[in-house]
């Protein structure tokens, strides 16, 4: 009996570990997909990354968190690459002058872009985890009803 309890406990610990690994991989996958999507012309598709990332989590808060971090980080990575490898910083400065009337506020535009990316990641992460939750619920119910039958 004690052995069985011990085994169950070990399995549970391993399950938790496995879940954590899956969550981590989900976050990494979300980030990588988000980075890949920054190089396509339809920025709206970034929600795919968020939804996929969120789907690794059964809690909406965690889905939102992973979407926020991964997409925000991915957009930040994109901006970093562009700003260091090209002369787009000049354009950004010029655009800041036009949009905000002060060319010194380029950092604000960068911050806003990353925040909007994070926001898109958050809401799409919620969509991902919400869908996963409902889908899992549906599966569980189905499984129960099959067992019942």
């Amino acid at each position, binding site marked *: 009996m004690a052995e069985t309890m011990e085994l169950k406990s070990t399995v549970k610990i391993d399950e938790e570990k496995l879940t954590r690994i899956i969550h981590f991989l989900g976050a990494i996958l979300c980030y990588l997909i988000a980075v890949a*999507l*920054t*190089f*396509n*012309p*339809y*920025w*709206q598709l*970034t*929600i795919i990354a968020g939804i996929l990332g969120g789907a690794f989590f059964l809690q*909406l808060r965690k889905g939102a968190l992973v979407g926020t971090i991964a997409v925000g980080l991915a*957009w930040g990575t*994109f*901006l970093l690459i*562009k700003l260091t490898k*090209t*002369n*787009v910083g*000049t*354009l*950004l*400065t*010029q*655009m*800041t*002058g*036009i*949009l905000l009337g002060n*060319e010194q506020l380029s950092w604000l*535009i960068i911050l806003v*872009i990353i925040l*909007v*990316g994070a*926001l*898109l990641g958050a*809401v*799409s992460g*919620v*969509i991902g*985890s*919400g*869908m996963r*939750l*409902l889908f899992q*619920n*549906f599966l569980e119910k189905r499984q129960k009803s099959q067992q019942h039958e």
Partner: protein
Amino acid sequence: MVDVITEISQEIAYFGKKQKKAVVGLCIALFSTATLITFLSIPLGFFPPLGDFLFPGRGLWNINEEVPPTEVIHNDKLTSDVTVFRDEWGIPHIFGETERDILFALGYVQAQDRLFQMDLARRATLGQLAEILGEDLLERDEYTLNKLMDYWTEQTYQAMLQSNNPIDQEILTLLESFSAGINYYLDTTKVLPLEFQFLNYRPSNWQPKDTLAFIKYMSEMLTWSYSDFTNILIKNAIGSAAFQELFGYPLPYQIPIVPDFGSDFNTSLKKSLNTGDITANLQSVYSHLSADVLKVIVKNPHEQQFLGKEEVQGSNNWVASGNKTATGKPILCNDMHLGFDLPGIWYEAHLIKEGSDWNIYGFFLAGVPFPIVGHNNYVAWGYTNTAFDVIDWYFYDRINETHYLYKGKPTKFGEISYQIAVRGQKAVSFTIKTTVHGPVFEGLVSASDFPEYEDKIIACQWMGQKVTNEARAIYLFSRAKNRQDFNHASEFFATPAQNMIYADIYGNIGIRPTGQVPIRNDTGIPAWHSGNGTMLYNGSAGQGEWIGFLPFEALPHSENPAQGYLCSANQIVAGPAYTKNYTLQNPTTISNGYRARRINALLASGENLTIKDMQGFLLDVYSVKAANVAPYLIAALEAVPTKTALQTAVLAELNKWDYQMLTTSSAATIFNVWFERFRYQTFQDDVINLGGPRFPPNTILEWLVKNNASSHWFDKNTTPQVETRDDIILLALTDTLEALVDYFGTEDISAWKWGKLHQLKIDHLTGLSPLGFGPIEVNGTGETVSPFSGYRLWKGDGIRLDYSDHGSSERMIIDLGNMNNSLSIIPSGERGLTNSKHYTDLLEMYLKGEYHEQFFGYTTANSFAQLPIESIIYFKAGGN
């Protein structure tokens, strides 16, 4: 469907708390996502969709900063291969076998570098701005269409299509090839420049007609004018005799462009004129309508630039013959003065047909495949504006909506209709009425102040409203091999009339003002009317009809003059022995001649001139005005018995001044502000306060200072005592010193540097200041050889910093002894992409007084490949 929804609803009804929370969260997230994406994907008023413009993957982040280092382009429109090398400044050097293929490549590279400028220029000329900028630009489009620039561009194009002249057919073929190059770029480029992204539109394909529109664009820029109205108001204000004295011939100190007709204009006439006649018998309809029209124009943001210009859109060109140069061959220089923009108006390019003598380096308008100025293996040429009067305004009695009175008979209006596309709304119908002379401008007579003239309408007749053959001229210039070829080509240059300076490798030099100049029939005009197209005509009475054009051979010209040099700077065309000066030029639009005096002095005294000397001449900022007038200021100040410390310091500064308008000079600041006040104190009461809209030329004031110290013009109408020249000089100086102390906050005149008041600011074509350049301190004034103009130092009660926006739009020095020594520069960069290193690189060199090589001697692709190269394009004949 209903069953499914019912099933889901039932399912949700049985959800636990956690699941219900998930559904609510999901719904909120879906709604938020949809809202966010929608909000960021739609345009917000003037701004493009923010997501498309700012977010990763597109918009801002994908815009090319430079062209690719190497491109290979296959196109079945090409008959042979073409190679384009862009040099270290991004200037294309195009090597090919046929001109058509070379111009295809030129179209492609111009589009890569200047697409937005090209599109904007054609839209501005053809009245299509509202299509991209919305309703705010509708009025401007209507006014532009009203000038009939689109209509006459189309007529010119149709005339070329129907022309039997093989040159016209060849030009059309070349224009087709050039357009194909532009359109290939449009078809293949995925990411358009910033301006298109920002305005969120894609330009339509380029047509040969778009290129022909540039003739009208330049004509408008250089010849459109409202001086017919201002002249009437001045004459009405000050009287005929005073008008003749202050604004009429003879103009003092003019050195004619063509030196073969004498130069003594007998300016002593100025002394003998009656100065008290201020009761001109002007018929009120002329002056009232003029006042009405000007009231409307002054409120029109685009048109006010053509109103009351006190400085001609100037330029310099000169040539020194082999007798004056170190090489024994001519050196030709040209700098055309225009408004500054980014990107600049000129696009430098070098076209070479390998294995032939067809080798051209020139300054092109982006959108035009032929150089406007430049040189080939044999000849070099440059322009300045002639300021010929080629626009006349008429008023008529309107009988009803369909007819007006012309020579006593009801005459039907012609009609031209347009549908103007407007961004964000339905196209707007616009109909232009025309008279026998030209288009009616319905909005110009508001009759608010003069309701009795409600039935009057205004129309104009303008050289830009004709079918003309300038395309033939510029095509032939680039092929000219000698003076005869060049003269033949010049005959076709109708508008905008230009002083064409010329030199060839055989040692010949020449100058020829060209252009079609109308001859008017002034029979029946009122006695007070100056005639010759200088004032508003009564069109209903048949006044001022154009009865022909001055024959080409009747225009004055000079070749290989004994003086060994030729120059033009928008001054009077020919000396007193030439009888048609008044036919050619309205005296109020001739340049005051300060630049011409300086250039003539430099060339007359120059010996063994070199390219280096010419570089210095183009940058010269010695003020002839100051050299002639400042001694009188100094003398008046010296005569003040008890001077303040400030006056003493000013006197010392002026005494040691060499009349160079340098940014570091305090004397330049004092003199320039003082002269503006001196002119004000002399003429404000006599001209402006009486209703005259502009001051007399500065040379008139110089003449009065030097020849008539007790002229009644110096006497102020507002005081009981009689003032003389020196009283006004000191009064103006008092104003000046008070204002300068106030502006700089110190009596330490060493702080009053000219550069603090004289600065250049260049706007981007859109007017968006973050895309512009400056401000930066610059030497010179509007009247020095190297000019910066377009500003006023005084506004209201004091001094203000008003940026210069006008000056040399290019500088070119051609060594006819060895064309490979030739130099040039533009105040811009070759590339219009705002984040390119070639956006302002040449401008920065220009501001330092530097020039770049043209690499004219590299006539094969193989030899050019050894030079520092930015990028290469290989155009391959045939498709993929």
